[in-house]
């Protein structure tokens, strides 16, 4: 069983020697991505490598913390070299396992291809200085592993999930770019010594914050513990008790922080067992944190410009790790890392062009746009179809995709003409002053459409210069230049991409017919046409078709035919224009019909409204009638009730029972000779 480790390291002179001395007993190879360390870390790595070839390091010359990408690159090489398991560690982490045999047994019996390694945050009893830390001392810890974990995974996992991603900080592993992280299963714990001296922790936090901020794909919440660590040290000072509290629950400290003394709390202790050398070899002059920061800035850093959120991938190239924009397929899986040169002996269509190919080209022109996105390019779709049909390209690259009208057309031509064409759309999807600046909604829309319609075709999010590194020379058959339209930009694009064109290369330039604002394509087109065979169409803002390939290739034939027969060229242009004209007319007719239909519908709606109003009136009348009827019924009910009440009183037995009193009173009245009273008779 081969076990490798991958570590991204930068200026960790106080711990790197101990890290190597301790962890080398577990690993078959320890891979490092070094971010141009200048405090002696590099010398230590170098010296260890001379003695022990299990240590291997690569330079990471970017001034930003691309940890996920760097570890990805190291993982790739680790599995290439036959690793069975890869541990993603930091320089302050030490495996807790009795020995190598035990580690192997644990891995073998683990029952999962992904292992999460919980932190045991160690609290030093004596803190070191900026450059020196005593690893052999006694450490305290809380007795509770941290909620944070690191990750290790097997070759099996990498093989079955080729698009896996180790997330920033190596805390999680995702099977795909947009998938949820793998479920946690705890395995071998890690001793973690993040706090070694006050100066070191503040340097590290400030450094990490700076480097993370420089990343194009930096997301909110990443490395927030660095910020809180800085604040804590600023607010509470760098007392041992404060550092203890920082170390105790590193990354999850509560607010406010309570300084603590682990010895008084009777916390358990650990001591790292390993052959640590006592005296460090005098490698370099010891730098203070201020000096170190100064040296850092003076280093020769490589620039890496990417639009925010673009997918990036790290690759080992010689001794360095190179960051490159990642080609993505429509279904969000990774495309190939690089695009290699195309075969020179390829012959597209048998010569000479015969009637059949012309008929096919004519058929290709009839194919409409595949999606309901419309732009200035819609008029050029037939031209593109004819071109593809005749040239039979193998790789089509588009600079400046925007909403993807022309790109989707190319994909659909490839599919309908059965060309097996590889289409690659390149854009930053940030917009430009000519096309208008746009939001990420345009990209999202494009991405969704691509995943639905052409999941196999690729796009690359990035700036053209950065992306051009992915293409080897002579690797593109058709390049469509539709980026920023100023003269300088177009000339730059042309010069940058000219060597990438194959021996059958054709470049398309859009907007050669636009003379407004600072559009400069027309000027460039006028200049360049002197040098290369070409043709163009004027409609749809103009499309220039420039042949930059080998003059003896079969593709050159088309341009020769056109050059020799100006009438034919004019005819074909006229045909295309007529076609577009016809299309426009149809569109107009369609629009007129649509308008008419809308009018009818509107009239219809008006009638409908009237009917509805009448109906409403009727309903209201009925409602009023019903209301009256209800009231009448109510009144009748009332009358009935009063009548009943009257009869119930009249029929009441009391009348009969009190009759004796009435009669008696009348007798008394008669005796007293008063007028006799009469009561109503019982009904």
């Amino acid at each position, binding site marked *: 069983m081969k076990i490798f480790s991958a570590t991204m390291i930068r200026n960790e002179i106080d711990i790197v020697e101990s890290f190597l001395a301790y962890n080398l007993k577990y690993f078959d190879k320890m891979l490092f991505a070094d971010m141009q360390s200048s405090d002696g870390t590099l010398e230590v790595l170098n010296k260890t490598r001379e003695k022990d070839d299990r240590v291997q390091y690569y330079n990471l010359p970017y001034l930003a913390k691309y940890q996920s990408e760097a570890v990805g690159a190291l993982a790739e090489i680790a599995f290439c070299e036959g690793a069975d398991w890869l541990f993603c560690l930091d320089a302050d982490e030490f495996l*807790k396992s009795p020995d190598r045999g035990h580690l192997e047994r644990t891995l073998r019996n683990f029952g999962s291809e992904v292992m999460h390694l919980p932190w045991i945050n160690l609290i030093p009893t004596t803190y070191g200085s900026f450059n020196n830390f005593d690893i052999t001392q006694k450490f305290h*810890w*809380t*007795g*509770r592993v941290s909620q944070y974990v690191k990750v290790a995974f097997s070759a099996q996992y990498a093989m079955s999930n080729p698009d896996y991603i180790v997330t920033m900080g190596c805390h999680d592993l995702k099977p795909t770019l947009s998938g949820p992280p793998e479920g*946690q299963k705890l395995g071998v*714990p890690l001793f973690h010594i993040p706090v070694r001296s006050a100066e070191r922790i503040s340097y590290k936090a400030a450094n990490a914050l700076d480097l993370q901020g420089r990343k194009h794909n930096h997301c909110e919440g990443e490395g927030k513990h660095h910020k809180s660590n800085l604040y804590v040290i600023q607010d509470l000072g760098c007392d041992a008790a404060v550092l203890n509290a920082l170390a105790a629950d590193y990354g999850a400290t509560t607010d406010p922080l309570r300084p603590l003394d682990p010895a008084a709390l*009777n*916390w*358990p202790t650990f001591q790292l067992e390993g052959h640590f050398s006592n005296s460090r070899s005098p490698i370099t002059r010891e730098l203070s944190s201020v000096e170190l920061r100064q040296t850092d800035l003076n280093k020769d850093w490589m620039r890496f410009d990417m639009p925010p959120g673009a997918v990036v991938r790290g690759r080992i190239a010689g001794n360095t790790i190179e960051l490159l924009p990642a080609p993505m397929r429509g279904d969000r899986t990774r495309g190939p890392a690089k695009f290699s040169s195309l075969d020179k002996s390829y012959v597209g269509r048998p010569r000479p062009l015969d009637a059949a190919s012309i008929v096919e080209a004519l058929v290709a022109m009839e194919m409409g746009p595949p999606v309901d996105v419309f732009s200035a390019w819609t008029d050029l779709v037939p031209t593109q179809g004819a071109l593809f049909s005749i040239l039979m390209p193998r790789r089509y690259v588009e600079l400046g995709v925007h909403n993807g009208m022309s790109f989707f057309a190319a994909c659909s031509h490839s599919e309908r003409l059965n060309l097996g064409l590889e289409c690659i759309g390149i854009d930053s999807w940030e917009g430009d002053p000519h096309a208008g600046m746009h939001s990420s909604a345009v990209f999202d829309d494009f991405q969704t459409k691509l995943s639905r319609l052409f999941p196999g075709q690729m796009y690359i999010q990035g700036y053209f210069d950065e992306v051009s590194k992915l293409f080897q020379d002579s690797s593109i058959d058709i390049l469509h230049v539709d980026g920023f339209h100023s003269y300088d930009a177009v000339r730059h694009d042309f010069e940058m991409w000219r060597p990438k064109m194959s021996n059958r290369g054709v470049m398309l330039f859009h907007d050669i017919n636009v003379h407004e604002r600072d559009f400069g394509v027309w000027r460039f087109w006028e200049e360049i046409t002197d040098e290369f065979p070409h043709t163009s169409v004027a409609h749809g803002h103009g499309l220039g078709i420039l042949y930059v390939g080998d003059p003896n290739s079969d593709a050159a034939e088309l341009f020769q035919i056109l050059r020799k027969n100006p009438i034919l060229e004019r005819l074909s242009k006229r045909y295309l224009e007529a076609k577009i004209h016809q299309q426009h007319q149809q569109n107009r007719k369609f629009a007129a019909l649509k308008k008419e239909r809308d009018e009818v519908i509107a009239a219809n709606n008006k009638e409908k409204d009237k009917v509805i109003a009448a109906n409403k009136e009727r309903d209201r009348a009925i409602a009023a009638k019903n209301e009256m009827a209800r009231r009448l019924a109510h009144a009748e009910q009332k009358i009935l009730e009063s009548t009943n009440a009257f009869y119930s009183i009249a029929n009441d037995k009391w009348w009969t029972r009190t009759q004796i009193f009435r009669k008696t009173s009348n007798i008394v009245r008669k005796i007293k000779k008063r007028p006799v009273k009469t009561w109503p008779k019982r009904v």
Partner: protein
Amino acid sequence: MASISIIIPIFNQLELAKQCLSSVLNAKVESRFKVICIDDASTDGIVADAFREYLSDDRVSIWRNNSNVGFTQTANRGLQALPDTHPLLLNSDTVVYDHWLDVMIEALESDVQVCSVNPVTNQNGSHISCYPRAKWGEVHRLPISDRKLAEIAFEEARSIFVPVHTNVGFCMLINRRSIHEIGFLDCEHFPRGYGEESDFCYRARKLGWRHLVAGGVFVTHLHGKSFGDEKATLREQMLPIFRRLHPDQTTMDAAFRTRDPLNELRQRLDFGRLKQLRGNNRMIRVVPLSAALLDAEPVLALDPTENTDGVLRFAGSWSDTFPNLPSYRLPNDLERLALDLEYLGYQRVIFDEAGAVFNEIKKYNQHWRSEIVSFADCEAYFEICRAAENNSRYSPDKEFDDQVVQ
């Protein structure tokens, strides 16, 4: 380092504590141990006075906290007392029986990574290792004394150690090395007790330690008397803290309940009790379910209603106190039934009450035929055994038949 320090934190309820201590001192064990009783400032009386009779025993020491500091700190004080021994936390409302300590030590030493060991206990004594039912709830009074049950456990399940995700502190033997590594119980988060031992177990598990239940020990835990009325409130206060510290608690508990790793152990104990019930009887009758529940001695009840093939299960008037006995589907489980009967010491299965059972059996006679060795239809009895192992033990002998016919 096989010596053990038994730590008994005491707070009030001195009679129970006394019962516990005397059971510890009187149980037959081979291991050496010391007992440390720590009185957490009881208000009922003076522990030292009540325990005067035990003071002469040099294995016992009785300490007293000056003020009431809560269970966790008291326990920690005990854990720190004898650093060369494996500590055993014992609640004062428990009763232990012979051999208990020996088996628990066997479990502790069965693997290097064992952190803690729990015994089996009565219903509601623990949510992990309770018997006879896994569920918390109504207590079924068993028709057998706990002492007897402990004996059965020792005989039947001495070699069974079941790994569990966490243990309970009523009687927990702890590996001293694990304490060196992860420290003592957490009195900051769980000052009063309740949850601190689970927290300890969870912490240890995340470092790779394992927890076992020793099947061969039965300890009575008169649960609920440990904390009295405080219990409900303590539990309510503890749960959110515990869930914050261990977000995986809900899933772990749910997985434990569904997987139920102790099921086999419980079944083994049920079998042990069944053996006791069997006495010297070597034959078991098959009767219809309706008749089965009247009988005091074990019978095999045939329940034809459950599915078309019928189900056999052990039954008797005591059935509801044996919740873990398996049932045997016909005819697939006949082999298992034969094995279990052999384990229990039965040699014959007799079908009597010819009318009812026989008519039921007849329905699937074709399934049975291969399994039936002898069949006498006048009296309607036959035996079950594995046709493959048609050895002399199972073959019918004449004398025996005569007995049955009478």
